[in-house]
């Protein structure tokens, strides 16, 4: 089973967020909860459902990743862009890590 993480957009900012696994959401992929089994996936999706109902996030979905040098890296280029920000505006690129939001 491929490794996955759960992502969404924040309701208020519309910004990209990742589920950290402890009921929180982070703007930084390094803090995402990794899932390699169906139980973890289901738990993440249940948490997402709750976050949708409490008006925290919208449009949650799982994405496939590779772990490279200990860092989760989305397989699809589209998701890599969601992580890093527009490739044409390096001034908007996000730092790799920050405290959980």
């Amino acid at each position, binding site marked *: 089973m491929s490794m996955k993480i759960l992502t969404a*957009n924040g309701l*208020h900012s*519309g910004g990209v967020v990742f589920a950290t696994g402890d009921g929180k959401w982070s703007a930084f992929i390094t803090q995402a909860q990794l899932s390699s089994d169906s139980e973890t996936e289901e738990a993440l999706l249940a948490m997402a459902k709750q976050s949708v*109902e409490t*008006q925290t996030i919208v449009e949650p979905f799982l994405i496939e990743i590779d772990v490279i040098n200990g860092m989760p890296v989305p397989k699809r280029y589209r998701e890599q862009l969601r992580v890093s920000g527009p490739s044409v505006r390096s001034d908007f690129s996000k730092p790799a890590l920050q405290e959980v939001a």
Partner: protein
Amino acid sequence: MYTYDNLDRQLVHQRVDQFRGQVARRISGSLNEDEFKPLRLMNGLYLEMHAYMLRVAIPYGTLSSQQMHKLGDIADKYDRDYGHFTTRQNIQYNWIELEQVPQILAELATVDMHAIQSSGNCIRNVTADPYAGVARDELADPRPTAELIRQWSSLHPEFAFLPRKFKVAVSGAEHDRAAIRVHDIGIQLIQNEAGEPGYKIYVGGGLGRTPLVGVVLREFLPRKELLAYLEATLRVYNLYGRRDNKFKARIKILTLELGIDALREQVEAEYRKTIANAPVTEDRLATIEQAFLPPVYEKRPKISTSLNNQRNKDQTFSRWVENNIAEHKVDGYAIVNVSLKPIGGIAGDATSKQMHKLADLAEQFSLNEIRVTKNQNIVLPHVKKDDLGELWRMLYIYGLAEANSGLITDIISCPGMDYCSLATARSIPIAQQISKRFADPALQEKIGPMSVKISGCINACGHHHIGQIGILGLEKKGEEYYQIVLGGDDSLSASIGKITGPGFSKDEIVDAVERIIEKYLEQRIDAELFADTYRRIGASPFKDALYESH
């Protein structure tokens, strides 16, 4: 320029209040996302890859200085200090927070602007020739017609839930600068043999996954019957347009499936019913026309000696005049094309500082008027030729004096996968690389008029089908790759470009474009345009150039 009356203002302010309540209910949880999404889309609010995007309508691409200042204010206060001008004469803000949208809309309302119907399955922002009212080749000003349609279509209850979005463009000139034949309805202002004003109506044009050139629905429609005829057309579409398949729901598919004769029959039958009850537009049109009367121009000589002297002294300025100035209908005046395509820059983006400066310059040099073009540039429509030197110096300081209007680096590019959640590949970086490759001004001028248009997905917001060189970004096995289409044309003789063959990787596509240009330069006769060379020699030589070494 048209300014809102009390009814317009009341309607827009009421809509702001309504949306303020909807946002509050979404945040409190009394509306869920499924309920809220159609409401936000009706107010131009999308959720894109990185944030909310707000699309603000600029009806028929016309702005006052005051309105441009407001757009700059919003970029500064609520976004990351810039906005993106689109191929449909709108502006998009890419980094908007949900709670701030009602306040932004309230601010827009203070200058008679809004985001209503900039999304959703309704009649979208009506677009028009950016040279309206000032073009030498103009038969009649399309703006009063566009404004009439704006008033009629705004919050029209019958057409709020069409099978799919509906785009209308209007042109009154010999040369089509509004791409009317690739719109759901294209309207051309004409006269009949008796010299009476009226319209030629095209239907069923569009790009996207099924690109089609519009066909004539009505050869001549008397001016006062326009709204009745549009109402009949929309009613037929609303009734018979497909709702079972999003990809077959546009009126172009109905036109294709029914056939133009059968569609015309249906429309004419409906028209005979609507004409009796349709609003009489002649009076209203006459009132609207008062708002678009030509400004009072000074009497000036056709040739500006001071302009010629400045051109002789400064080659960079002279090049800008050569490429970016169009003939004005009034002697001594010029139409100025302000390029939003600096070499290596992002097509259509303007910072808040640039927007404020453009507003100031319009006030100082262009009778307070600004136009936004489908080519993602800005037009200052009323500049005295004697003032061009001073205007250029100010534009130069603010990075707005690229002398590339209509040349190969004046590239149309949609936001692509850098921003757009529908995109399958990036388009901006490809445009930037092509722009850098052909940056040499002498090379650009040697190539001559050229349109390169890039879309990051099949929805074709970058109009790739009608570029002389069109590029479509797709995804294949997780990688971006790019198809080339050649021979597109967005004029009245519109044609859809043809795919050359297999696509190219992002590292190959710029070289591929260069090979097309080299082949064109090798094959053209004298100053023959690319489109003419392509028609004369066909696709094969270009395909050979693209794929022989590939």
